[in-house]
């Protein structure tokens, strides 16, 4: 399976979560906060805290710890509060 992380191709395994993929790619943060612009990554690991938000296929606010990667996913860093990208 192949996905991209901020445009770079990244190998992925079936069943891997987006958070595990990012951590395996040596990323510890993939979002910055709305007010302070501070980096965030994994925190609770089980879908409770919403710290691990990431943009997947143009859709923001996806919890990286809960989302399982799918072939062709485009994953990118989320900056503050984002609106979904217009897509056809």
């Amino acid at each position, binding site marked *: 399976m192949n996905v991209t992380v901020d445009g770079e191709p990244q190998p992925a*395994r*079936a*069943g*891997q*979560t987006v*958070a*595990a993929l990012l*951590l*395996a790619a040596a990323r*510890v*943060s993939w979002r910055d*906060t*709305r*007010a*302070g612009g*501070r*980096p*965030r*990554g*994994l*925190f*609770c*690991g*089980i*879908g*409770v*805290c*919403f*710290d691990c*938000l990431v943009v*997947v296929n143009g*859709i923001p*606010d*996806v*919890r990286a*710890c*809960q*989302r*399982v990667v*799918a072939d062709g996913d485009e994953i990118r860093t989320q900056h503050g509060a984002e609106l979904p990208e217009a897509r056809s």
Partner: protein
Amino acid sequence: MTRRVVVVGAGPAGVSAALAAADAGAQVTLVDSAPTVGGQFHRQPAGAGPDKVPGGSRLVEHPRVRLLTDTVVWTVEPLHSGHLVHVRTGQADGPGRHGEALTADALVLATGAYDRALPFPGWDLPGVVTAGAAQALAKGQGIAIGDRVLVAGTGPFLLPVAQSLVGVGAQVVEVLEANGGIRGWTPSALVAGRGKLAELAGYARLLATHRVPYRTRRTVIAAHGEDRVTSVTTAALDREWRVKPGTERRLPVDAVCVGFGFTPQLELAVSARCELVDGFVEVTPTQETSVPGVFAAGELTGIGGADLAAAEGTIAGACAAGQAIPEAALRKARRGRTFAAGLANAYPVRPGWRTWPADDTLVCRCEEVTLGALRTAARERDALGVRSLKLTSRVGLGLCQGRVCGRNAAELAAGYTGGHYDPSDTARRPIAAPLRLGELAEDPEKENT
């Protein structure tokens, strides 16, 4: 007519409940947001089948069980008799999830718990995670959160976390227990938990083999780094958990795992209007809540580990299906509760933690509310009560809806104003799981009932 039982949560409690209800003749739907059954305790590596979980094979083969994984329950709605359980199936937080409303004559809530984290300077740095996060990552994904990891907090759960970290190749630099450890166990807890002692001895041997120091009455009081944690300060604590001056030590690490007990995942129980006692769902000996036809089992009703959760699940499932309390499960549950009470005694959260955060430490991670801002809101604006505190400081108004900061903010504010802040007020959320705007706007008639 066959009773329809919906069980929410497929951890030890929910799996037992589903099997007990189906064995008693009910038609059961078991729902979990995860891709597979097991919950936290029996979390499986990605792609593993349900046969790896106790009862899992029987569950999939049972003619009266419908298993709905990758499915989140976002709210429950009372009906004239029974409940309507609204679910969405599909990729987590993805578009195009499929909606359904399940009719339940009886409902069993088994939604479990999550780690409690306490605020300290730097706890919002990437690399600082909960103990459960490290555990889920190790068990479910086979990777370590870091290479040099500190584990700190309170409770026996820190030990299996250290074990899993070692198992996936991390170096655990220290395990810090803020309470007194096994010395705090009461005799009745020791008797009720004698099975657990062998397990704990196993962890102790493992830590010794890997030269991992286990220190009591010590914790992490600061994490340092620019864009991620690179070191921590640890310190000795007195019995109230105030820092003992002069005992601070700096340690290089690339990850920190913190866990100060667990908080129950209450929102569905609250939206079903179940009464709470001391922050947990109140249940009768049949595991029925204050709402007729709604049962609760597992960590929702008290923190007591997987065996107690399973015993409660068996009782809840059987009773939800209209049977009498299964005696063997009742005995197990009683023993489990004695042990749980002993644990609660031995591993409390002491008020001295409130001295750890600095004025600029975030209390609410989502809305980025600092300790200083919370104090000002509580004192100067006289925010008595959780609701006014939320409105004046924005604490708990973010995406996690106060799950992470709710109890902490309530305890801090009570210290400032002497007011009473019911932390379970923070669990009053209309929706238990996030929905996409488009999903909310969807015509409910189109849901396939």
